[in-house]
């Protein structure tokens, strides 16, 4: 039974599960729901907490969820965190809502970079770590090896590491007990002014903006007038409740408790992740909780409707999506090749991929996305111009310098592939920071790399050169000056803005050559030779030619052939009408899509 009044802090435990994708986090969450009878067997379904279709299909968590488990008189709040580098900030807010973290590691595969990165985040946030090896019943499991590895990393007694099987349920009771024993209860004073941390915020078509919150100090009653610190918005909250796991209203939430608040707001931008909620008026706190940050796009791409006429539908879809995605930025963009569209900013490649997929799936749009790029800082004397569209990059010689965003990358690899990892990183302009052996067989290595390289194809290269064994995580690491140039692609002398990219000068030739070769395969023969050129400014760096078509005529055209011939011409005419014209060159839609595909990098990125 869910208590309607706040639980004493001594009987509350707030924890999350830090795990690599496929290491069994969702399965463990399912088991916890079952063992604590929060969900009865007949209502159980796999990946209970992953509510979006996309989450289930991809086996990832995009939105943070919390669920209250009642166990042996304790209120256990499990806060599910997003599991991807794009959402590092969201992860940090989820962690800030917890006192402990279960570090879940696959007993066969061992530690991965993402787990490590999130472990560091959890440790830095002061969380108590409860380490557990999962899948110990798998034939490929190496519990001893993995226990040693984990104990070394955590600097803990190997006996403190639990061995479980989330699938069979073995050891799950012990894990719950360990959470109760080891994770400290939250602190907080019910008499202090309210401070509640928003660790996720979503838009519900019926109820408006719902925030997921952790009360730090004070009491949050139902139906209170509340205030968001960062946006200074006030509203009449409609309902306070907890997920157990279905939304269940409560009278109030007390210090240390986790639940939801139906805010009465209509736009997630008014209640952002990381913000603090307090009561409006004199009873409210005067100080927000620390750590709020505005979501900042890291990766930009142009989104264009494949059918020019769908522009207004795309605009509407983006407006609707923005209601539930505070991190999504967009502004109108006009491309000579692709027409009207939007320049969109994303937290990362996965975020970009998700937005694109949701637009196509939920709004039935067909889109062309230009190659993703990072944001550049162009220096001119004391002026700094932010450029996030290659088309806006000023010509060489008109600025002093350009800076690009860097990341601090953590990679974990079997020692056998260390050379491949270093080579790949070096060839992508990486600078090694340090490296250490987790065990004699596994190495943790750090590089500072341009984000642009990661956005381009770094992860694909890393995966293919380490047979999929290396894992990667990264965090922003400031800006650094670089010798960057814009490479333009010209068709029959006309620049195609959609193909312009900013790359390091050393890579310009390779990129240009690759692009013109790819386009030569994709552009159909026309009535004249079509030159495909890559250029830096006025200098041509690569060239290919699509030779003119020489024969396209019906051989026989007698009495019975004429209607058929006319209909074929009409069809051909419709096909032509669907093509994009660049100067005199007809370019089929598919050529744009294929030429702009960065080897499906974003999609595979999800699987790290």
């Amino acid at each position, binding site marked *: 039974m869910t208590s309607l009044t706040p639980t004493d802090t001594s009987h509350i435990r707030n924890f999350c599960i830090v795990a690599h994708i496929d290491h069994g986090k969702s399965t463990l969450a399912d088991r916890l729901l079952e063992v604590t009878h929060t969900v009865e067997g007949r209502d159980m379904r796999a990946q209970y907490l992953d509510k979006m279709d996309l989450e289930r299909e991809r086996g990832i968590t995009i939105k943070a969820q919390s669920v209250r488990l009642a166990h042996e008189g304790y209120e256990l709040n499990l806060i599910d965190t997003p599991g991807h580098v794009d959402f590092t900030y969201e992860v940090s807010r989820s962690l800030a809502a917890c006192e402990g973290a279960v570090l879940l590691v696959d007993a066969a595969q061992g530690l991965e970079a993402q787990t490590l990165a999130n472990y560091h985040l959890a440790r830095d946030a002061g969380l108590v770590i409860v380490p557990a090896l999962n899948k110990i019943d798998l034939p490929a499991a190496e519990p001893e090896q993995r226990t040693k590895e984990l104990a070394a990393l955590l600097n803990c007694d190997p006996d403190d590491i639990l061995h479980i099987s989330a699938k069979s349920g073995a050891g799950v009771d012990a894990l719950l007990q360990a959470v109760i024993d080891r994770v400290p209860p939250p602190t907080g004073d019910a008499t202090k002014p309210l401070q509640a941390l928003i660790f996720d915020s979503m838009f519900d078509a019926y109820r408006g903006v719902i925030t997921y919150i952790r009360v730090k100090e004070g009491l949050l009653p139902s139906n209170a007038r509340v205030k968001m610190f960062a946006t200074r918005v006030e509203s009449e909250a409609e309902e306070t409740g907890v997920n157990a796991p279905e939304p269940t209203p409560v009278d109030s939430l007390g210090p240390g408790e986790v639940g939801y608040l139906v805010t009465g707001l209509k736009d997630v931008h008014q209640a952002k992740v990381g913000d603090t909620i307090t009561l409006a008026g004199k009873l409210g706190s005067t100080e927000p909780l620390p750590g709020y940050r505005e979501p900042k796009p890291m990766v930009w791409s142009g989104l264009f409707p494949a059918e020019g006429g769908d522009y207004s539908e795309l605009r509407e879809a983006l407006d609707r999506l923005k209601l539930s995605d505070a991190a999504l930025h967009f502004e109108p963009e006009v491309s000579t090749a692709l027409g009207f569209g939007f320049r969109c900013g994303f937290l990362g490649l996965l975020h970009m991929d998700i937005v694109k997929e949701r637009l196509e799936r939920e709004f039935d749009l067909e889109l062309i996305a230009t190659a993703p790029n990072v944001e550049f800082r162009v220096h001119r004397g004391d002026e700094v111009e932010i450029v996030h569209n290659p088309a806006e990059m000023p010509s060489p010689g008109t600025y002093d310098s350009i800076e690009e965003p860097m990341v601090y990358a953590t990679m974990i690899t079997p020692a056998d592939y260390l050379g491949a990892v270093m080579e790949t990183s070096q060839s992508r302009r990486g600078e090694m920071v340090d490296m250490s052996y987790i065990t004699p067989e596994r190495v943790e290595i750090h590089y500072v790399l341009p984000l642009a390289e990661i956005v381009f194809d770094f992860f694909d290269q890393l995966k293919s050169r380490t047979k999929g064994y290396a894992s990667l995580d990264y965090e922003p690491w400031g800006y650094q000056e670089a010798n960057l140039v814009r490479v333009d692609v010209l068709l029959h002398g006309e620049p195609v803005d959609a193909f312009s990219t900013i790359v390091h000068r050393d890579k310009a030739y390779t990129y240009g050559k690759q692009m013109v070769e790819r386009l030569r395969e994709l552009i159909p023969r026309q*009535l*004249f030779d079509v030159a495909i050129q890559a250029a830096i400014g006025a200098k041509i760096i690569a060239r290919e030619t699509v030779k003119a*078509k*020489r*024969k*396209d*005529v*019906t*051989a*026989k*055209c*007698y*009495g*019975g052939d*004429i*209607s058929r*011939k*006319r209909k*074929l*011409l*009409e069809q*051909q*005419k419709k096909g*032509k009408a669907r093509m994009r014209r660049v100067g*005199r060159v007809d370019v089929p839609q598919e050529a744009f899509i294929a030429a702009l595909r960065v080897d499906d990098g974003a999609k595979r990125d999800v699987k790290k």
Partner: protein
Amino acid sequence: MTVEAHAEEPAGIYVHIPFCLTRCGYCDFNAYAGLDHLAPRYLRALMAEASLVAGVPGRAPGPPTWEGAEVASVFLGGGTPTMQTPADLATLLGRLRETFHFTTGVEITTEANPDTVDETSLSSLREAGYERLSMGAQSFDLAVLASLERLHSPDSVRAAFTAARAAGYDNVNLDLIYGAHGETIDSWDRTLRETIALAPEHISAYALTVEPSTPLGRAVASGVTPEPDPDLQADMFGVACELLREAGYRHYEVSNWAKPGFECRHNLGYWERRPYVGLGAGAHSYRDNHRWWNTRPPEEYMDRVERGELPIGGEEHLDPSDAYLEEVFLRMRILEGIPASWIDEQVSAPFIESGLIADEFDTLIPTERGMLLLNELVLALTAEASPSQTS
């Protein structure tokens, strides 16, 4: 401009005889091997259909009747019409002559397969009134003939041609096909020279076209046979243009050459959008922007004719933009060209500049290179809405 109707002009009659000895792998015509036993009944149906289309008083509404129509040409195609006896073909022609008003100088052609004719049969045909012969030679290269699945040999073409001359034929066409798998420029060059050496009055040279519904189409789709190389076919077209021009043939349609005065008037009728009557299974008729066609299966065709019905399988009425499109691509095919005023100068200028069309006395005519790209050219020239039909 107005696309003029040609209703008052004399019509052509096309007679379709769908029987063949074997089916060739590339052919997608309405033709059948192994149905010879239907031939006598089919020939009777053809004659009955002629009477029907020539006008049955009180006939149900439908395509216009051809009552009193003047006929300037007859063309027997197939299939292989010469699988029928000259006597039967004579009877057929006689019936057509009774049913329609043949003009003086009417052009009467029959297609002929080299293996199905000799001097005697050709003499009879000529006597019956079939004064023009169109023979399928295809190639003088054995390997190419084999690749096309043609049964005859180069020698049988020469023999049939000699027989035709001996029988008094002074207006003969030879059909050639180029670009079959395995054919080289040299082989094609030899085929052309052999053809020219025979000195027929008319030569049709067709680039091999892969039709999806044929055995060849399936072989190409499955990768068994490579698709004809369009660039090689373009080279072959160039060789044909050059050799035939030197030999005194006039290039008067994309795939047709003739000694002056020997152009096929029947085929010109299609291209000049004059009326034509189609008799037989699947045959098309046309008059006044109205086109209709007979049902394709021979049995169904015969059944319906025998019931006194017109065996119509479908029809279409060309709206002004359809008519305009047909007018443009047909005029371009026969190098008659279109008035420069029909096309926006900005649209035509790049093609004139790049040598695909020539502007001769305010008429746009495709060049030799342009002829090979007519589909694209016509699309580009008619991309804008068709000019007003009333101006």
